[in-house]
């Protein structure tokens, strides 16, 4: 379960950072919101990179399929990246209503995505990858930087 544990914890960390940025924007403290948003965006993008550069290829190599769930996850990453861009714009414009509205969409989208990964993809990774591959993939993922 080492993949599930590590990756699920990253999801939770992203959630916490996201919520902090949302609250700051709701309070109208834009400098604070920007700082917290950057933290959220960086953690999320690094998490995506860890998956796309290390975890997904390991899974694809093991199962011989690159058009299965990993393809869907990559597509959903693009959707989230698009929203992160829009959130950054709203933040720049200090448009509270737009920012909070985008937050709603982003949160539901992210949670749906996380749920699929946690309940299906990570569970499958932990099941199909040999122990040594799991350990080495995890080590490689921890080294990924943006």
């Amino acid at each position, binding site marked *: 379960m080492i993949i599930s544990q590590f990756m699920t914890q990253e999801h939770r960390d992203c959630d916490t950072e996201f919520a902090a940025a949302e609250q700051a924007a709701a309070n109208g403290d834009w400098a604070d919101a920007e700082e917290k948003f950057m933290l959220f965006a960086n953690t999320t993008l690094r998490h995506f990179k860890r998956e796309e550069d290390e975890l997904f290829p390991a899974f694809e190599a093991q199962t011989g399929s690159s058009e*299965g769930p990993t393809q869907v996850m990559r597509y959903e990453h693009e959707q989230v990246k698009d929203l992160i861009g829009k959130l950054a714009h709203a933040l720049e414009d200090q448009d509270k209503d737009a920012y909070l509205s985008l937050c709603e969409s982003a949160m539901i989208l992210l949670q*749906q995505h996380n749920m699929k990964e946690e309940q*299906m993809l990570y569970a499958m990774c932990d099941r199909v990858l040999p122990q040594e591959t799991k350990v080495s993939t995890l080590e490689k993922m921890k080294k990924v930087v943006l």
Partner: protein
Amino acid sequence: MFSQNGLSLDQAPPLSVVFRFFFSGALFGILTGLLILLFKTTIFNAHSLEAIILTHTLTLGVMLSFMFAALFQMLPVIAGVTLKSPVQKANFVQYPFMLGVISLLFAFNSNAPWLFGLASLLLGGSILTIAGIMLKNLIKLPHHSSSSKGILLTLSSLFIVILLALYLTGTLSGLFAGTYYTEVKEAHYSFGLFGWIALLIVSISFQVIEMFYVTPSYPKLVSKYLPLTLLTLLVITSIIGLFSSYIWMFSNILLALLLSGYALLTLKRLTQRKRPLTDATVWFWRMGMSSLLLSMAFMIISQFKEIAALQTLSYIFFTSFALSIVFAMFYKIVPFLTWFHLNSQGYFTAPMMHEVIHPKTAKKHLYIHLATIVTFVLSIFIPQMILLAGLLTILSFGWMTYQIIHAHLLYKKTQETGEKFDMNMG
């Protein structure tokens, strides 16, 4: 391996599949309001014909429609189950289902055996088929979440509710002698309220409370065992109840305690949200859970003291529980799906969630809903108030109908005039 898990790019069913069931549910809600104006306080006598007609308009017409809307949308997300040709299936369910509800209401009113027969055919056929298809897909899942397992049990319960109902309508249409009519009626009623409605909300909440509000997850003990415990309790009680009806008293108290514990836990989870912003949907959940607590408290007291008003209060708050959660889900699902579908289709002019339904609009509905429930409670003591309660019910569901139409028109308009990324570019 993966296709069985239903992970595909176009998992989400077309928007029309979800909207149509919300729409028909809201229309049955308006009908509920009209019936309240017509029946007035006779509905407070649980054994009256008026109460039975009203209950079925609410449970079948409103709640089951909303359940279809939610499940068609949520099964791919929470259980990885994708239903093939969803539009066709939705059509197959919706029309016989709506006709079935109407014929059942007329059957109750006229007591005509052929109408009970027709209603059984239409409702039994449509509900059992779709519940069967969903169940078949859920059973095949290689790994379950607490929500998917809970929904599996909920649908099994719904299956039982309908089979018991067919025994009752079969008796009323003269098909069987109905030796166990009273016992089956008791089981039908308990399975409907606890096994189906309460279990549905419990199962969905395991997933959506965490997902929408970013809270810690429910304790494993609760999410893993509560649905199964509720259903097992109902099955055992129904069997023993065939021989001794006293068992229901113990079972009802136990069920009420379990659900009260769940309600308290959910209220606690809502205070542990990582997203501290409180929108109307959080209040709808709070109102739903508080209503469940009140309903269960009145139910426990009425096991010991036979006071009609206590039972009526228990029913009113149970209805408030179910409808509050429906509204909480509605104000998240409809704006999100409208945005999500248009955004996925490449429209960069896709309206944002707040443009589909603004949080202030949802808040106004919260006040209408709260006023409706307060007026209902008052009308137990001041019968004239029931007319206001009926009007508020119409306003509440009318409000909802308008939001669906508005979202649908916005969706169509964006598709017709919106600017789109050319997906084939480059």
